[in-house]
């Protein structure tokens, strides 16, 4: 899908800290071993450069301080900086920062391996469904 919103070439960048995405068959994965807030901060300069958000950074109902994993889809092509993307990533960062400061240690650091796997799975499910509905692959 291109930036004008017309369904055309199905290309995107998949920025994630979710290891389950790596083996999911989703192409163009850029994996970063970091937390969700840091991932957003990595994405912000990409948006400055002119890559647009295809998915909302705060997908799902699980808060960024609770889930350790997030996957964000960006456009593969650069253009003039997308205003909505700039605004959304900015607000997502602020939203995550506020929630990270709720507790001495944010909740996402507290989970055992089984819970982590489940968070990964839910994130993957959301991205899969998003791609299916938007017919991108």
């Amino acid at each position, binding site marked *: *899908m291109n930036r004008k*919103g017309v369904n055309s070439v199905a290309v995107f960048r998949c920025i994630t800290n979710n290891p389950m995405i790596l083996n999911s068959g989703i192409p163009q994965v850029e994996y970063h071993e970091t937390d969700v807030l840091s991932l957003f901060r990595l994405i912000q300069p990409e948006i400055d450069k002119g890559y647009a*958000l*295809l*998915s*909302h*950074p*705060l*997908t*799902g*109902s*699980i*808060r*960024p301080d*609770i889930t350790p994993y997030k996957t964000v*889809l960006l456009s593969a092509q650069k253009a003039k900086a997308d205003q*909505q*993307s700039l605004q*959304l990533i900015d*607000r*997502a960062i*602020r*939203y995550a920062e*506020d*929630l990270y*400061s*709720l*507790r001495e*240690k944010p*909740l*996402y*650091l*507290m*989970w*055992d391996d*089984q*819970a982590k*796997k*489940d*968070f990964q*799975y*839910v994130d993957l*499910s*959301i*991205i*899969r*469904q*998003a791609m*299916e*509905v*938007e017919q991108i692959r």
Partner: protein
Amino acid sequence: MKLTLNKFYVKDIQFAQKSAFADGILYVDKKELAEYLMEDPNIQSVDFDIARPGESVRIIPIKDVIQPRYKQSGTGQIFPGFVGDVETVGNGQTNVLEDCCVATSGKIVAFQEGIIDMCGLGATYNSFSKMNILVPLIYPVEGLDKHTHEATVRVAGLKTAAYMAKQTLNQNPDASETYEHESILEMGAKYKDLPKVVYVDMVQCQGLMHDTYVYGLNVKGILSTMIGPLEVLDGAIISGNCAAPGHKNATIHHECNPVIMELLKRHGKDLCFVGVLLNNESAMLTEKKRAAYYTSNLSQLLGADGMIITEEGGGNPETDLMLNCRFHEKKGIKTVLITDEYCGRDGASQGLADVTPEADAVVTNGNGNQFVVLPKMDRVIGDVETVKIITGGNANSIGQDGSLSVEIAAIMGSCCEMGYEHMTTRLR
């Protein structure tokens, strides 16, 4: 269309040899109900528990809450697409068990939360604590994948609710209310001087534990659509969303949708309630825009003067909420938004993930980040282990006396974004 809700007030639920409803007591034959649920081959075993108002009981983790309803007359059956066929509902008579609900508990994923406390401080944050609750505990067969597990628990809850309300068939209700909703052309002529009000019910469909069903269909990827309010009261919308307990719209919130109820009550008096538009909250930005634009197109077609928009969840849905607000206001349709906030422990943060200057009329249902200490309960229904990990495995959150420090966001329905509860925030 006309729908009558026959209300039966439940004073207690008791297990018995034979299921029945008599003198306000709902008797449940566990064996018969279990057999009914076990028709689903994905269920290994099932057990039931009862929680009553005032008891020292905590239910956790809760997936969905459902109000028992069953059709006394009219077409179709309650929860179409799941319990009933996909036939039209929303007419005739529906029997309703008041002060009573089903709370499904089942650990689909290892991080699940969702608390109902039947007494103490936690009980002041939702209506469910004041209800008689039947809890089906569903144990699936081994190796069941998570999507099927979720669906299994979801359907078992709906079947349980229908089974319970079915016990009232052909009895005299304690009270009954009739709601009428004409065709749009008819009401346009009938109430030509009243402002035309549309309700935009934003539903969330994004993936596992984040889906919503209408007449049995997962409405992911739909263009915004319209549904009759009376159909919603017969369980046409079902929650498959089991994340974010404080502000997800459980099935009971759909069945008793407080915005629909209020608009129906005022229909023909100070407003004309045109209908309900369903707008999906997608994960994708283009879809969010398409949905909001399309919803605003439909509103225009319907001749709406004003609208109430409710959201489900927090974070990305705020973008849908604000897009809908902006697009409608730009078309001259006045909006009121209903939401909640995450404005921090002290309430000093900006509580929404997206905002727009057009949003000048907003109802908030509370700050989910408020911390409360919940007292130890004598009994836990569901999964005791979950209590330990509910706040992220933080041992400190469980006090020496067994009390639990949580955000009210962990309490089922505490900040319901349809405005089901009686809470707001004030600035100080």
